[in-house]
C-alpha cells in the first residue's frame, strides 16, 4: 500500500529537457520491500534525470515527434489508464502512475507486493489507488487557491515538510495535505476524546455554516434530424462548517421544487455517516420515470475543519437553458455564418455575464467581417481568428437573438493561428459562456431551516447558489460534428 517514490515535474515545452523535476521523494524502506517482493522482476528507482527523460517521452511531452518512433508510436503500445511502464536503462519500470495537470506532471511508483512477471492486474494492487490519492492530494494542495506562480513556488517549498507529515514512510496517512499543515500548528492541543485523524484541531469562535450549490451545465447541440442534442447538469455542494466541539453532527437536506429535476449519480464526501438507499441508487444510467426519487436528499455528516465538497450530483433537466443553432457555410473566399440563440422561458433572465465564443480553426487570421446582430455586440480578435458575441446581462423580451455575417480570412501561418483536430473543414462550433447567480437549473436548494446542527450554540447559516456554463457547444449544423453515443439514440 506504499509508494516507492513520488515526483512533481513541471512541463516546459521548448526547453532542451522538456521539463524540470520540481520535487521528488524516495522511500528506501519501501524500496527494500520492493526488492524482496518483486524478486527477479525488480527494477530500481532511477535518479531524477533519467526518470524525467523517460517519463516525458512516454507521455509524449517531448517536442520531437516529427518521425515515427516504434518505442512510442507503435500501434500495439496501448495505454488505457494513467499507469505506464517506463524504459529505464534497458529495463522497464512499472507501474508508474502519472498524469499532467496544469503544466505539472504528477508521478509516483506504487509498491507491488508480488512478482511483476507476469504483471498483475492493476485492480489487485492496493498501492495504485493510494498513489492516485497522494497525487490528487498534492494537486489539490498546490491549486487550492489562486494559481499565482509565486504562491505555487511557496507551496512547492512546503511539500518536503508536508510529506514528512502526511507520508513519512511512503504509506499515505492523509491525502488532505492542508490538514497535515494544520496539524503542525494544532499540535499542542490536548485531546480528551477520540479525535478524527482528518480533523487537525477544533474550531473556536462564532458558529456558522455556509452551503454553496454550484451547478455547471454542459450541452452539445447539433440542430440535426438524426442526432439528438444532449445536455447535463453537474452540481457540487460545498460546505464550510465553523462549529465548536470535536465531533459536531450536521444534517443538510437538499430540496427540489415540485417541478424540479431529480438529482442523480450522487457521490458524497467520506465524512457523510449514512446514506438513504434511494440516494445511492438514483442514477442517470437508468431510464427516467415519474417514480424517480425527488428528495429531500438528507446528508448527515461530521464536518472537517476546512471547506469541503459535501456531494456531487448530476441531473437531466427537461430542456437546455439556451437552445440555439449555428450555420456556417464556405462561400468562395469567405464564410457565411448564422447564429440563433433562444433562452428558455423557465430560466432566470439575469446573467452575471453571457457570451458566445465563435472560433475559426485551421484558417488564417480574420481580415474582414461584416455582420448584423439583433442584440448585444460583437468583438473581433483578428489574429486569434475568434469572434466574441457579448450578450450581456439579459436576453430581450422575445428571449431570442440572432447574429449573421460573413468572415474573410488571410493566409494561414501555422505558428499564430489555432490548430484544432476536430474542426476540420466545415466542422465548427460556438461555445457559450454564462453565469447566473442565485439560481440552479434543477431548482435544487438547501433550505436554511432544514439544516440541523447538533452542537453548542445556534449557528448562522448562509446559502449560495449559482449556475455556470461549461462545455456548452453548439455545432455547425451544415457539416459533420463529433457525436456521442447518446446522441444517436433518438
Amino acid at each position, binding site marked *: 500500500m506504499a509508494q516507492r517514490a513520488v515526483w512533481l515535474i513541471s512541463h516546459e515545452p521548448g526547453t532542451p529537457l522538456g521539463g524540470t523535476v520540481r520535487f521528488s*521523494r524516495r522511500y*528506501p*524502506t519501501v524500496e*527494500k520491500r520492493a526488492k*524482496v*517482493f518483486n524478486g527477479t522482476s525488480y527494477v530500481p528507482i532511477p*535518479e*531524477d534525470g533519467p526518470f524525467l527523460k523517460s517519463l516525458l517521452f512516454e507521455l509524449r511531452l517531448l517536442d520531437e*515527434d516529427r518521425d515515427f518512433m*516504434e518505442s512510442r*508510436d507503435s500501434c500495439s503500445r*496501448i495505454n*488505457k489508464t*494513467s499507469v505506464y511502464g517506463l524504459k529505464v536503462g534497458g529495463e522497464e519500470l512499472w507501474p508508474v*502512475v502519472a*498524469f499532467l495537470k496544469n503544466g505539472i506532471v504528477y508521478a509516483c511508483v506504487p509498491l507491488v*507486493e*508480488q512478482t511483476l512477471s507476469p504483471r*498483475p*492486474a492493476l*485492480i*489487485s494492487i492496493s498501492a495504485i*489507488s*493510494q498513489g*492516485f490519492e497522494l*497525487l490528487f492530494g498534492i494537486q489539490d494542495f498546490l491549486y487550492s487557491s489562486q494559481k499565482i506562480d509565486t504562491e505555487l513556488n511557496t507551496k512547492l517549498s512546503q511539500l518536503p515538510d508536508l510529506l*514528512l507529515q502526511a507520508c*513519512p*514512510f511512503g*504509506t*499515505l*496517512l*492523509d*491525502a488532505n495535505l492542508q490538514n497535515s499543515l494544520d496539524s503542525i500548528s494544532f499540535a499542542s492541543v490536548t485531546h*480528551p476524546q477520540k*479525535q*478524527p*485523524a*482528518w480533523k487537525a484541531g477544533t474550531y473556536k469562535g462564532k458558529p456558522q455554516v455556509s452551503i454553496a450549490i454550484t451547478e455547471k451545465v454542459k450541452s452539445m447541440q447539433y440542430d440535426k434530424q438524426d442526432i439528438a442534442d444532449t445536455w447535463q447538469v*453537474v452540481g457540487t455542494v460545498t460546505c464550510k462548517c465553523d462549529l465548536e466541539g470535536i465531533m459536531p453532527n450536521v444534517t443538510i437536506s437538499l430540496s427540489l421544487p415540485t417541478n424540479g429535476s431529480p438529482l442523480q449519480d450522487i*457521490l458524497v464526501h*467520506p465524512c457523510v*455517516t*449514512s446514506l438513504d438507499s434511494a*440516494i*445511492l*441508487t438514483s442514477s442517470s*444510467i437508468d431510464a427516467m420515470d415519474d417514480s424517480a426519487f425527488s428528495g429531500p436528499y438528507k446528508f448527515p455528516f*461530521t464536518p472537517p475543519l476546512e471547506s469541503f*465538497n459535501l456531494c*456531487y450530483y*448530476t441531473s437531466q433537466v427537461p430542456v437546455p437553458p439556451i437552445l440555439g443553432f449555428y450555420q456556417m457555410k464556405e462561400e468562395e473566399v469567405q464564410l457565411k455564418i448564422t447564429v440563433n440563440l433562444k433562452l428558455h422561458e423557465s430560466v432566470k433572465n439575469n446573467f452575471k455575464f453571457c457570451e458566445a465564443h465563435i472560433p475559426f480553426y485551421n484558417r488564417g487570421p480574420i481580415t474582414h467581417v461584416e455582420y448584423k446582430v439583433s442584440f448585444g455586440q460583437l468583438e473581433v480578435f483578428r489574429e486569434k481568428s475568434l469572434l466574441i458575441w457579448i450578450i450581456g446581462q439579459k436576453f430581450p423580451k422575445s428571449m431570442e437573438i440572432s447574429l449573421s455575417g460573413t468572415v474573410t480570412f488571410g493566409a494561414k501561418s501555422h505558428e499564430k493561428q489555432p490548430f484544432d*483536430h*476536430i474542426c*476540420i473543414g466545415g466542422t465548427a462550433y460556438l461555445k457559450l459562456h454564462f453565469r447566473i447567480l442565485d439560481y440552479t437549473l434543477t431548482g435544487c436548494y438547501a433550505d436554511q431551516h432544514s439544516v440541523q446542527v447538533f452542537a453548542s450554540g445556534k449557528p448562522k447559516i448562509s446559502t449560495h447558489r449559482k449556475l455556470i456554463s461549461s462545455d456548452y457547444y453548439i455545432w455547425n449544423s451544415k457539416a459533420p460534428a463529433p*457525436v*456521442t*453515443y*447518446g446522441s*444517436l439514440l433518438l
Partner: protein
Amino acid sequence: MGLLSREAWAQRLGAFRASPSAYMAAPEGEDLGRDLLSDLRSEKLSEQTKVSMLALSLEYPAQLWPDAPAAEAAATSLLDTLVLLPPRPSALRRPLLLAATTALVTGGVLGPTSGASLRLLPLLLGLASGGDLGRGFGPSSEQRPLQATACECLRELESCKPGLLGGCLGLLRGLLGQEGPVAPVQPLSLLLALALRNTLVIQARARASLQGLLTVRAPPPGGGPWNWTLAQEGDAHLQPQAPSWPAAEEECGLSALEPSPEEARELRAAVAQLLDTSYLLTPVAQAQLLWLLGWALRGLRGQPPVLFKPQLVRLLGTAQLALLHAVLALKAAFGEALFTAQDEALLLRRLTLAAQHPALPLPAHLFYLHCLLSFPENCPLGPAGEEAAPLLLEPQLCRGLLPNLLHDPLALLARLHLLCLLCAEDEQKEEKGQAQSPCHYLQELLAGLQQRAALTGGPRALATLCFQASYLVALCLAGHRTVLAPLTHGLAQLYRARPALAPHFVDLLDRVAPELGEPLRVVLRQEVVSRPGGGEALRWHLQMLAKVADRDAQSATLGFLQAAAAHCTDWGLQQALLRVCRALLRVGVGGGLADLLQALARQLEDPDGRDHARLYYVLLSHLSGPKLGVALGPSLAAPALTSSLVAENQGFATALMVQEAPAPIRLSVGPQRAEGPVPVLQLQVEVLEPVYSLELRFRVEGQLYAPLGAVHVPCLCPGRPARPLLLPLQPQRPAPAQLDIRALYTKSTGLTCYTHLPPLPVKFADLFLPFPKPPEGARLGFFEELWDSCLPKGTESRLWCPLGPQGLEALVSRHLEPFVVVARPPTSYHIAIRLPPDSKLLLRLEAAQADGVPVVLRTDAWAVLPLVGDYLRGLSAAV
C-alpha cells in the same frame, strides 16, 4: 572536514540531490554520511537545516551508510542525538525517530543482535503507549505527535519484518480501547491491523495457534527482552503477500489456522473494534485498514465477513478512489459471502457511474473503467486474468461509457476497448443495420479517427491514436468481417490521403493478425501501384510497397517500379526502390524482375545502387527459389541491427557463404572387412538433424597413405539407419594413422555448413589383408614357401603372446581367422598376412601353454616389428 555553515550544507545537499551517484563517486561524497551525523549535534546550525539533513538521510540512507556496520553506527548516533536534545520543543525528535528507523531497515540490521534495534524498539513502544519516558523526551505538547510517529515507525518496522510486533497485539488493543485522554486512533489502528494480519499469516504458515497473543499484555517497555520469535519465523516469509485477489487464493492458506472458539471470539472483537472506529481515520487510512483486515480474515474459519457489512453502504456512496478500490478488494476476497447478487449489481452500477462522473478527474475515470473490466464477479464466466465486460454490465449501463472523438487518447482507447467487447456480444445477437448498434457506432468512430489522422501537418499523436484504435479493434474483433471490411477500406483511404503515414502502416501490418493484415495488404498494394511513379510521396510508396509487395499483381508492381525508377534520383530513393526489388526477390517474383534489375544496373546514377541491382540480378539468375528466400530473408545473425545495409550484408554472409558450425554428425569405425585388394575402412555415420549433400573429406598427416578420396552422401536423416560408408585406404607404408575429417553439408534451412569432425584412428590391424587361399592340400607348402622367402632380406623374431582365460583357439578365431593358412587346433596355427603396399607378416603359433603361446614371426618389413609386438601383446587384453 570541519563544521560546515548553513549555506555550505544547503549547497552540499543540493549538489547531492542533483545526482546522488555522481556526488558519491566524487571525493566529497566520502565524508557526507559522517559529517551529517556529527553536524546534527552542532549548536551552530539551525533546526531547519538539520531537518533538511535528516530528510536527506530518510531518502538516501543506502548511499550515506552503505553497509550494515555503518547503518548500525548511524542509527546509534541518531538515537544518541535524540537523547541529548534539550528538553524544550524541537522539530528534530520526529525526523530523528524516522531516520533511525530508516537506517536500521535499509541497512538490514534490524534484529536481536543489533544494539541500536534493542534501544529503538522499546523506545518506540514506550512512546506509542504514551508512557512517561522521563526527561529528554520533550514537553508534553510534543507527546501526542511523537506517539503517532512512534506508531508509524513501528508500522514500518513491522512491514519490513513481519511478526516483530506479534507479541504486542494485546497491548495495542488495550491502547486503542483506552477511555479518557487517548492515543491517536489512526496510527494505532493501522499498526494493530498490520500486526494482526502478519501474525495470522505467520501462525497459519507455522501451523501454530494464536497462543493467546490477542489477549496477553506485553511486558512493559524497557523491562524484559524483546520477543523476536515470530519475527524470525516471519522473516523467512517476507515473500509476496498474496493479494486478496481470487487468483491468488491458494497461496493464502489461512485456513490452516484453527483458532479455538475463545480465540475466534477475541479475533472478532479485535476486528470489530478496528472497524467501529474506522470512521475516525482519513479515507486513505480507512482503505488501508480494509485491505489489511480483508487480507487478515480471508479464508479464516469461523470469521464471517459480515463484520464489514455496516461499513459498505457508507463507502459505496463516496467518490473516493481508495475507498471504492478497498470495497472491490473486499469483494474479491469474500465474494458471495459478503456481497449478494443485488449487492454486486449495486456495486457495478456505482462503479459504472464513477467511471464517467463529470465531477471526477480523468485518471480516476480510467482506473474505474479498468476495475469494471476486471471486476471480481461472484460467478465469473470468462477466463481469469483477461479484461472482459462483467455479465451484469448490460449494454444499457455502458451507454455513457462509449468513446467519442472529443475524448483524451487514453480515455478513447479505454472506452474503445469496452465498445469492442460490446460489439463482440452484439454480433452474436445479429442485430445489424440499426443506426444505434454498437458496431455501426464503432465504424463512425473509426472513420472520424481516420479523418483526423489524415490531416496534413497534424500532430503524430493523432495518427498514432488512429492506428492504436485500429489495432485494438483488429485484436478484439478478429472474426468480425462486418467491422474489419470497412476498417480496411477506411485505412486505404487514409493512406491515399496521407502517404507519409507509411511507417505506421508498416508497423500495423507487422502486428495485426491476418484477418485484417491480409486484406489490408492487398488494398494498400493496389493503392500504391495504381499511382504514377513520381511525386513527393514516392519514398513512402516505396516503403509501403516493400512491405506489401508479393507474387500477386506482379506486372502492376513492376510497372510502378519501372516508372518510379526514373524519379529515384538520390541515394535514399534508390535504396528504397532496391528494397522493394529485394522484397520481390524474396517472395519469388521472377521474369519481369530480372529485366527491371538489369535496367537498374545500367540506369541508376549511384554506383552503390547499380552494384546492388547487379548483385540482385546475379542472385536471381543463379540461386534457386528457396535459397534466394533464405539469402534475402531476415538475417538470423543480426536480428537487432537496425541498419538495413548491415543486416543485408549479414544476411548474404549467412546464406551465401559456407558457415562453420558445430557438427550434427558423428562418425565411428565399424568392424574390419579384411577382403579385396586394398584395405577398406567401414565408417558408421549418425546425424542429429537432417543433412543434405554431405561430403566427407579425409586427410592423413605425412605421406603414410596415398591421398584419400571424398565420400558423398545425398541425404541423411536422424533415426533412419544409414548404410556404412566405405573408405578405401592406400598405404604407402604399413603403418597406423590418424584420419583428419572435415564435413561439408547443407541444412534443411538451405544454409551450407562446414565442420571439423573429431579425428578417427586407423589401427595397424585395419591394414591386414589375407593372401589368396591355396587348395586344401597345398596349404602347408604354400606357407612354408612364404616363410622361406622372407629371409635373408627380412627378419625373424620370437615373441611371447600372453593368453587370456579363453585360450589360443578363441584368440585366433576372434582376431586372426581370415589369415589362418594352416590350423591344428587347439595348439598350433600358421598365419599369413599381407601388409599393403607389398609386405608380408607370417606367424607360427605352436605349442600353446595355459598362460601364453610362443610366437615365431617372419616379415620382410623390418619397420613393422614393434607394431607386431604391440599388436600381439594387446590381443589378449582385447578378448
